[in-house]
Each structure stands twice: as structure tokens, then as C-alpha cells.
């Protein structure tokens, strides 16, 4: 795909492939950061405005959740960041790791709600798929994939095919596949949306554990406000389509956290209630 025309909004430097001048201060748009500035997305064919003038700044290493009603445009926003949308549909500026979005950006690892495992690959084969496509040598990526399968609790299932794994186990493999990439930015679109409550709690803690260790940037889309509050540094609430940001709330819970332990924490419930109130306020306004 050609360079994203959004780039031209940023003094043309990124478009020309020249290194951008260093920006200092909290808004340094370097590796791991995402800058969204007055971005609108409209599907011309359907004459449908999906994202309306959204501005959002995500710093390197931050864990940000995005919640919003179904069909409001959350996935579309992630797809734009991943370079999956044709350039014509978007206006405004988006910088991912300081560069305009493009397909196959090594700075990004994308995880979907559906596990999207290859049924003809074993758990190990699936876990190493991303690194394989990105050209990591076989020995290295295999060791790494094994470690991650171990981390997500799938030791002993390396040679099992997806048909013999439960849905929760499959999503664990997908999580391992995502973390097996060395990308500083993880885009996760309702990764645990299809799981039962118990498995979900387990995997949330696995994800938090990996994140706390590696401090990558996570953009996490979910329908589950409790999930968003318990894991994130910030929760961004979006309006019904066309998506606008109606609240951007800091979550002052201590790190490291355990999602399981938080379930019994009164502070967590107080914050949850506050965020809920802000959300309702925003939706009725």
C-alpha cells in the first residue's frame, strides 16, 4: 500500500520518509505512542460517517481501553491504525509510533475477538506464525513461542491442533501469537469478548502479567466496563455512531494489579461506579 495521505498533514516529513524532528515533552510521538488528531472516517460508498472528529493521545507503555456501543466505530478506528483501511476514507492526522499508519507495520500486533488460528497448525505453529511471517529465524521464534505458551498456561499442548483445544485455550494461543511479536504496540479488539467469566478473569491476569513485565502500549477494545476499569490506565468512552469521545477517564488504581483480587476491592467498585456514571451522563447528554 502507498504511504498514507494522512501523512501530508504532518508537515510532509513522514510522508517523504525523512526522520521527523524530535518532539519533546509529554507529547513525544515516538515508538510505542499513538497520536490521533481530529480524525474522521467516512465510508463513501455507504455515505456513512463512522468516526467523527476524534482526538486521542496514547503514550508509549500506556494501557488504554476503549468502550462504546456496538457498531459505533471502535473496530474501524483500530483498523485505521493498523493500516487496513483505504486511505480515502479518513481525514485528520494519525501517527502510529510516530509514523502514518500502514499495513504490515512491525510496530503493531493485532489481536481479534475470534482467535483466527490456522487449524492446520499446532498450538506451537500458531504461536510462532507472526514471527515466522516477519522473518524471525526458526530456532529463535520457536523458543520464544514455547515460552509464551507456557506463560499463557498451555505447557504440554504445543503439538495439539486447534480442533482439540477449547475456546479459552484457543484464545490463549492467539494471545501467545500476539505477544510472540516484538511490536511495541498491541491493538486488541475485544480479545476476551467470547469467553466465559472465569476464563476471562484468568486471561485478563495473564495479559496484565505480560504487559506489566514488558510495558508495551496496549489499546484494548471491550464491551465490558469492569474489564476496562480493572486493566487500564485510562478508559475512553465513545458515543454511538458516529463515534466521538464522550469521556476520557484516568483509573487511579495501583500497579501491579490483579484483576481477580480487584473484584473484591471496594476502591475498584467505587471507581467503576464513577466511570459508569460518567458513561451514562455522556450517553444521555
Amino acid at each position, binding site marked *: 500500500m502507498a504511504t498514507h495521505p494522512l501523512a501530508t498533514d504532518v508537515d510532509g516529513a513522514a510522508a517523504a520518509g525523512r526522520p521527523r524532528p524530535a518532539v519533546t515533552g509529554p507529547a513525544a510521538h515516538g515508538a510505542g505512542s499513538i497520536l490521533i488528531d481530529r480524525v474522521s472516517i467516512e465510508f463513501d460508498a455507504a455515505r456513512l460517517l463512522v468516526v467523527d472528529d476524534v482526538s486521542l493521545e496514547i503514550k508509549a507503555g500506556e494501557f488504554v481501553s476503549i468502550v462504546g456501543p456496538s457498531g459505533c466505530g471502535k473496530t474501524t478506528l483500530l483498523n485505521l491504525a*493498523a493500516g487496513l483501511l483505504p486511505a480515502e476514507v479518513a481525514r485528520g492526522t494519525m501517527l502510529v509510533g510516530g509514523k502514518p499508519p500502514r499495513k504490515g507495520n512491525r510496530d503493531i*500486533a493485532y489481536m481479534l475477538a475470534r482467535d483466527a488460528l490456522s*487449524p*492446520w497448525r499446532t498450538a506451537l505453529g500458531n504461536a510462532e506464525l507472526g514471527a515466522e*511471517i516477519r522473518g524471525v529465524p526458526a530456532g529463535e521464534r520457536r523458543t520464544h513461542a514455547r515460552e509464551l505458551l507456557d506463560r499463557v498456561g498451555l505447557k504440554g499442548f504445543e503439538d495439539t*491442533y*486447534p480442533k482439540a483445544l477449547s475456546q479459552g485455550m484457543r484464545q490463549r494461543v492467539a494471545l501467545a501469537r500476539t505477544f510472540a511479536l516484538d511490536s511495541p504496540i498491541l491493538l486488541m479488539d475485544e480479545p476476551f469478548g467470547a469467553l466465559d467469566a472465569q476464563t476471562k478473569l484468568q486471561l485478563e491476569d495473564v495479559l496484565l502479567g505480560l504487559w506489566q513485565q514488558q510495558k508495551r502500549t496496549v489499546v484494548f477494545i471491550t464491551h465490558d466496563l469492569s474489564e476496562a476499569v480493572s486493566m487500564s490506565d485510562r478508559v475512553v468512552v465513545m458515543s454511538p455512531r458516529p463515534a466521538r469521545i464522550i469521556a476520557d477517564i484516568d483509573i487511579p488504581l495501583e500497579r501491579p494489579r490483579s484483576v481477580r483480587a480487584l473484584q473484591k476491592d471496594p476502591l475498584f467498585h467505587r471507581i467503576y461506579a464513577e466511570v459508569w456514571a460518567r458513561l451514562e451522563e455522556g450517553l444521555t447528554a
Partner: protein
Amino acid sequence: MTGVTWPRWLIWAVRIVVLVLFFSAWEWAARAGHLAPVLFGRPSGIAEFLYQEIFVTGSLLVDFGYTIVATVLAFTSGSVAGILIGMLFVTRPNLEAVFGPIVLALNSMPRIALVPLFLIWFGLGIGSKVAIGFSLTFFIVLTNTVAGGRGVNPDHITIAETLGASRGQIFYKFTLPSAVPVIFNGLRLGLVFSLLGVIGGEIIASEHGLGGTLELMAASFNTDGVLGIIILLALVGVLITWGMTAIEARLLKWR
């Protein structure tokens, strides 16, 4: 509903008893004059014929060889061409847009009507039989390959694109493996149709082969001979299907 609960030996035992009963009844009816042997043959006559022609004169073995060689040639050429062109269509949608309707038109031609033409072009020998088998197998495998290539999971493509997979990587790591099961169904069917095409061609005109002998037997009212060859062909069909299933089970153990 429950699955199979009988053990293997019991299934085989019942199967054999049923077959023995069937053939005994047939034999008895033919001997007692209820079934005219000229029209329906006799199991003992069929066995006698098969024994003579396979183990004594060996002439059936020669015919068998011709038929099998023609079938194998038709099947391999037809399926290799079908898979290659099919994959070309999958990866080059423009090509398919141009040639798809032409292929459809070609495939709609009744193949039996083409046999006289194939005989003129390729002669009475094995060449015309291979051509008929090829013309059936090719289109079956082509259609299945295209369907299989289309059936790739869109989530896989999304993941592949975010990973920066090249067109070649998308093809070899996603399109091809997800198409294999559907292609396999095409191959299974293609093999059966190769045999059908070859036998059909042999019946119409040939120098060797089971189809030709079958036609000869029928013309001389040797019903035992006709039925003997049909049974032989049925056995070949069963063996082919078993073989394909065994290969599939190994190749597609992830299913």
C-alpha cells in the same frame, strides 16, 4: 442417535453373512430356473469366468493393466492441470473474470459427444481414453480448487495483512492449506470420473482394456463375463476410495 456400537469383527461377520446369503439365493434361483442365466448370469459362472481369465489365460490382467494405466495418466494430468489453473484463477481474479465463463461453457459440453472427436484425434489406443478421463477430471478438480481457494477465512487475511505478509506468504501459508480439504474432495471425485471416462471410451471403441472386453462379452451374450468385469471394476473403485481416504487421513490429520 448413537454411533456405531458393534465391534469390527461383528460388522465384518454380518457383512459376509449377508453377501453369502445374497449370492446363494442368486445361485439357487438361477439353477432352479427362476432367473434366466443368459439375462442375469450365475455367481458360480462369474467366479469361473474370473478364475479362467485372470489365473489361467491372464487376458483380463492385460486389459486391467491398460485400463489402470489410462486412468492413472488421465487422473494425474487432469488434477495437476486443474490445481495449477485453479490456483492461477484464485490468485489472479482478472484471469478468472476473463476465462471463467469459457471454462464453464467447455465443462457444459456433454463429454460422451466428444468421444468420436477424441478417437479421430488420438486414435483407438490409450491416448483417446486418457483424453476423455482428463476432460472430466480437469474441470472437477479446477472447480474444487477455485472453491477451496475462495474459502479462506477473512480473519486469516486480516491477521496476515497486519503482519505484513507478502502475496506469496498469504498464498502458501493461508490460501493453499485452507483449500486443501476442498481440493481433496475434488481429487476423490476426479479419480472416480477418470475411471468412468476411460471405461466409457473403451466401451465405445478400443483395442484393449476392461471396457472393450465388457462390450465384447455383452455382444456375445456372455452375461457372466459382463458381471465379472463389473464386479472387478467395483472392487477397483472401492480400493481407490480407500486409498484416497488413507492419504487424506495422513495429510489432513488436523481436521
